[in-house]
């Protein structure tokens, strides 16, 4: 493992609590500051893969390993993985009534860093990102994701990423539910946040739309729980022209 490797996935097999295998042997390495994309049709196992890396309790890793900085994290809970620098932007963030966004963000930052934060400075940081993301201050004062529109939820997730400063950020469909202007804003901010923190990015998406505003270096095509094709940005162009069928037929 070279010294820049942050996340290493070795022959990962993941099953649901009912025993259905969803991820069927994925290998992936993400180095510091690298930008990876996983694309695939519905039901290919992309979200399950991301949740398994984050430590979703109902998913069982039946084979293989997940390493952060060379150490296996399979025995760790989600909060312990977060402390090691893994971040998951949820496709459908849950709405939690009564838990204020700022209190939650403060608690998350303090948990991640194991230290108390300067609230004044923290609020100033939040304000700076809300301006960049075009988030109205209204949602900051509200309960976590409660009553947020689809776009507000995605932006609030990016805001959390900015505040957490992770080593690895997995973005699960950061563009779904966003209009074209919002996609540009989210893409621009994710790029900037990742660059400034040298965050390894792993974007999961069906469509190439958001990737027009980002610069992925590595593209992985996933189908039926496996990576069936890997390459550079040229794979996205091929996907645009030929769709998933060409990859699926090729895989067979």
């Amino acid at each position, binding site marked *: 493992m070279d010294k820049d490797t942050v996340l290493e996935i070795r022959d990962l097999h993941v099953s649901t609590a009912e025993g259905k295998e969803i991820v069927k042997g994925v290998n992936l390495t993400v180095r510091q500051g690298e930008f990876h994309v996983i694309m695939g049709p519905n039901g290919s196992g992309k979200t399950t893969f991301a*949740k398994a890396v*984050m*430590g*979703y*309790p*109902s998913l069982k890793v039946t084979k293989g390993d997940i390493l952060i900085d060379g150490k296996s994290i399979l025995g760790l*809970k*989600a*909060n312990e*993985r*977060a*402390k090691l620098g893994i*971040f*998951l932007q*949820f496709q459908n*963030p*849950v709405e*939690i*009534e*009564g*838990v204020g966004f700022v209190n*939650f963000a403060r*608690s*998350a*930052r303090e*948990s*991640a860093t194991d230290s108390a934060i300067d609230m004044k400075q923290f609020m100033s940081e939040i304000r700076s990102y809300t301006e960049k993301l075009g988030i109205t201050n209204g949602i900051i004062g509200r*309960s976590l994701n409660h009553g947020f529109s689809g776009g507000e939820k995605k932006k609030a997730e990016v805001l*959390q990423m900015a505040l*957490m400063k992770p080593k690895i950020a997995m973005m699960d469909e950061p563009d779904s539910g966003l209009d074209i202007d919002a996609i540009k804003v989210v893409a621009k901010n994710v790029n900037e946040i990742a660059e400034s923190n040298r965050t390894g990015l792993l974007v999961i998406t069906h469509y190439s739309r958001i990737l027009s505003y980002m610069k992925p270096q590595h593209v992985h095509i996933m189908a039926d729980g496996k990576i069936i094709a890997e390459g550079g940005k040229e794979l996205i162009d091929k996907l645009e022209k030929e769709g998933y069928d060409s990859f699926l037929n090729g895989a067979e």
Partner: protein
Amino acid sequence: MEYYKSFVAEAKELSAKLPEEQNELYKRYIVTLPLSDFAAALDTSLEDPEEERALVAYTERIHKSFGVRFDLIFGSTKAISTGSSFIKVIDVGRLTDDFFSRKMHRSDEDKIIAFIHACSRKIVLIDIPEGQKASLNVLFANGKLPLSAQVAVKTGKDSQLSLFEWCGTVESITASSFSGIIHEFDIGKHSSAEVNIVRNEDSKSCVSGFTKGVVKDGGKLLVNYVYNGGACSRVKNEFDAEGYGAQAVVTEMIIGSAEQKFDIGTVVVNSSGDTITDLESKAALMERSMCLLKGFADIRETAPGAKSFVNERGIVLDKGAHIDSIPGMSINNRNVKASHSSATAPVDEDSLFYLMSRGTSERDAKELLIAGFFAGSISKISAPFVKEIVSSLVQEKIKNRGFGIIPEARTSNIWGVSDSRHMMFRENYKMQSD
């Protein structure tokens, strides 16, 4: 005392025959209060010479933790007040067989009510005259002797009342003790009352409460209950929006741990046109605690345009905990808006995962979720210091699964009277003569 003993036995037997418990469904869900356990406490010490000292010490502990000063401190036999003109304490006599026989006939609707009536030595009257405003804090505390309190609250036309009641236990008692409080609210025309009642008796206490509230034309009664303490609690409340346009809004928060048992039965009644009743009950239970939520709305034929809502929610944090919520409605007028709902579930796995994925420990995440669960209810409390007390109790219960006074509560500036906190007790309170 022979009469008393037979009364206790009778009360235990008859407590399962209350009117609403004739209901086939409700009668399967009853927490029986072990009243016979308290005979011993009364037999051995009808007077507790240490009670005044214990009440003073207990009040000072609460003062230190929360900064609250009480207008009335009400124990098993003693009552200590600051002399508020709105509060009167009436001494109704000593505990005698004759007293029992006189008092128990005041109400035979429920033998536990009769039990409290029978044991009451003093009655509290809170009377807010027409057009006046009052903000009052009252402490009730049981100890070696059982607490049996009757509280009558009357608000005159266009008056306003904010009443906070802390119900606790003076000291660590070795035997079981009883804490029973009966409330009668008479909310006058166009007057408003907010009543916040925290039941925080200790783990050896058997807790009982009965409330009968009546709201007159255009009046508004907002009652927020917190049931946090006691080994075994049984509560029966009825709130009647009796006058035209009257409102009765009731919120119940139940937080259980260990082997705590709660039986909370509340009825809201719309008796007149354009009245609003709203009953929201929320329970979060841990370990092996259990709760019965029996919320019932009764919309009378005489209540066209009435609105009534009953909403029961439960979160079960541990496998051994158990909630039965049984919302019910009786609608006797076609021109009304009414709904009832009930939902109980474990802590949502996705919500827990979401919070933990941001670095929050499982324990802290659960704490956040429970705090969030109660946040909407706590927000209905207007007094900031009561909000803080209730939030502290919820946090303490979830963090340490304990209850009682929070030693390290952050309560500075609650009242802005921190300098006076350590003033001599006697300078602030005067004894109500026996």
